[in-house]
């Protein structure tokens, strides 16, 4: 009887993970966290960007398809696979972010650099090509962003010739910057012949971009991509003496608001563990059901009730809570205003059970 109950609960949880709404936020993040020189800084970039993505999907209530690749997984082959397998609906948003090494060939015409996963020329891939491939999938809105050098290397060869885009238009904060827009944004952290700087707490460009975005969000200011990127550009020049380059080609799209037709069950993702947590949190679910789902979720995803869960702040650095899996789930099941989670790191057994997970929690205001 217990086993049947457990099975039913798992089916319900899994069933809720199936996409049942219209707009998806595809987050493709590649980060060279293993590099001995810049790896630590890039890791910080990745954590901060993941947190920001969590905030974006929480605010806009889009389904999240996250493709996060770091360390050994951050390579050209993996990038090509992800881009090839990317499936977009006309209302979808694609956000691509890369942090790591970069450069340009002597004869490169595009103002955007090549992503360099390794020192070898064959492992380089132009940012503009990433933009092209994603554009071909026809999402409603795409952002291609890179924090990498754009300096000229005699060793690199030209990979492709691509055209450039054009200009502007208007909008608001998370909803309007990421959801109610059509078009594209392409941005690299430095202009031709410039290097990009990595500080211990993250890339100069990434840090400046997130700071400016945070300022706009917290001040609930009127903003559009052009204003945001101009401010980012200024801040980056001041902080690290290199100039980001960008193209904004954005129109305000039809507002597909998450209206009465969309049940308030919180954001769903392609990560079933996070889906289980979202369903257990304060997203309008039945309270008794939330409490009863603690044991099934514990058995489904964790190696033991003593597996470690650490909660970090928005900076991805400040450890706020350290508890065991049982305590964590019990807390989530009775939580207030807790609506979403960002998974920053996870360790699993060979059988796929979690022994350690590092999370950032997102609360409704």
């Amino acid at each position: 009887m217990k086993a049947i109950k457990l099975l039913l609960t798992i089916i319900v949880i899994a069933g809720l993970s199936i996409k049942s709404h219209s707009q998806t936020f595809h987050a493709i993040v590649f980060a060279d966290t293993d590099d001995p020189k810049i790896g630590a800084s890039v890791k910080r970039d990745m954590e901060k960007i993941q947190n920001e993505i969590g905030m974006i999907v929480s605010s806009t209530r889009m389904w999240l398809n996250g493709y996060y690749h770091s360390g050994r997984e951050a390579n050209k082959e993996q990038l090509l696979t992800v881009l090839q397998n990317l499936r977009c609906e006309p209302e979808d948003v694609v956000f691509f972010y890369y942090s790591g090494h970069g450069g340009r060939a002597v004869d490169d015409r595009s103002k955007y650099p090549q992503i360099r996963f390794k020192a070898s020329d064959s492992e380089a891939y132009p940012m503009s090509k990433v933009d092209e491939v994603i554009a071909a999938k026809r999402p409603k809105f795409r952002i291609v962003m890179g924090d990498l050098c754009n300096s000229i290397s005699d060793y690199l060869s030209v990979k492709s010739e691509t055209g450039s885009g054009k200009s502007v238009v208007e909008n608001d904060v998370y909803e309007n910057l990421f959801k109610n827009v059509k078009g594209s944004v392409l941005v690299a952290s430095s202009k031709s012949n410039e290097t990009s700087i990595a500080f211990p707490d993250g890339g100069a460009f990434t840090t400046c971009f997130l700071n400016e975005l945070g300022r706009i969000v917290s001040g609930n200011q009127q903003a559009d991509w052009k204003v945001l990127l101009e401010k980012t550009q200024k801040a980056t020049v001041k902080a690290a003496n290199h100039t980001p380059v960008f193209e904004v080609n954005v129109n305000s799209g039809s507002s597909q608001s998450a209206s009465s037709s969309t049940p308030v069950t919180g954001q769903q993702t392609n990560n079933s563990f996070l889906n289980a947590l979202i369903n257990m949190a304060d997203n309008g679910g039945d309270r008794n059901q939330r409490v009863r789902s603690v044991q099934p979720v514990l058995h489904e995803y964790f190696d033991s009730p003593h597996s470690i869960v650490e909660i970090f702040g928005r900076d991805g650095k400040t450890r706020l809570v350290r508890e065991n899996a049982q305590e964590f789930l019990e807390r989530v099941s009775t939580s207030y205003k807790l609506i979403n989670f960002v998974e920053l790191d996870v360790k699993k057994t060979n059988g796929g059970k979690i022994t350690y997970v590092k999370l950032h929690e997102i609360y409704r205001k």
Partner: protein
Amino acid sequence: MKKIVYILIFALSATLFTPLKAQTLTLSDKEQAEFKERINTMLETFLNDLSSIGSKDNSIEFKKAVIKSTLRNFINNGDPYRDSSGYLKKEPHMQTSVLRNGKEYKNKLPIKTYLNNLMYIRYEKVTITMSETLYLSNLYKVGDHYEANATYFQYFRGEHGDGRLYQDKTKKTIRIIVQIEEVYGKKVFVVRFGDIDVVQTVA
């Protein structure tokens, strides 16, 4: 000449002793902000938990789960505890107050007792909210841990089944303890609540 030399020696010796400094928690501005936000969230959650425990809309099963989770936010899960010197300390308490005929009556209860009583409170519906921004002091080192004080205003609203209403606004202070635990070589800051006291109650 001798006197001058001796004065010089004395003056130099005096400067060798560095002055004692007040030991505040050396958190960076960002860490302070993160912790402040965390404490704010914990407190808001705690007050909402009190509403949940007091509400007739929730099952005993849910209320018990909330109490279990809430108690983890208190020192030693709301039980008596030993301080760093080994002395046994009383469990954290919740001080409540009620206004009757314009007069304030206060009462202190161990937090566990308070929460269990709240499960069976006579009101049909209970709403407890934080009405104004939390004031949080800096974190100061006390013995082997750090402490701060938070002051907040709490709105209590109790509705009887027959429509009668009791509401008040109370200024409360809560002791915040931040313990540093080392786990697998990592330093973890653990935030816990201590005593909650009433400063003043108004209608």
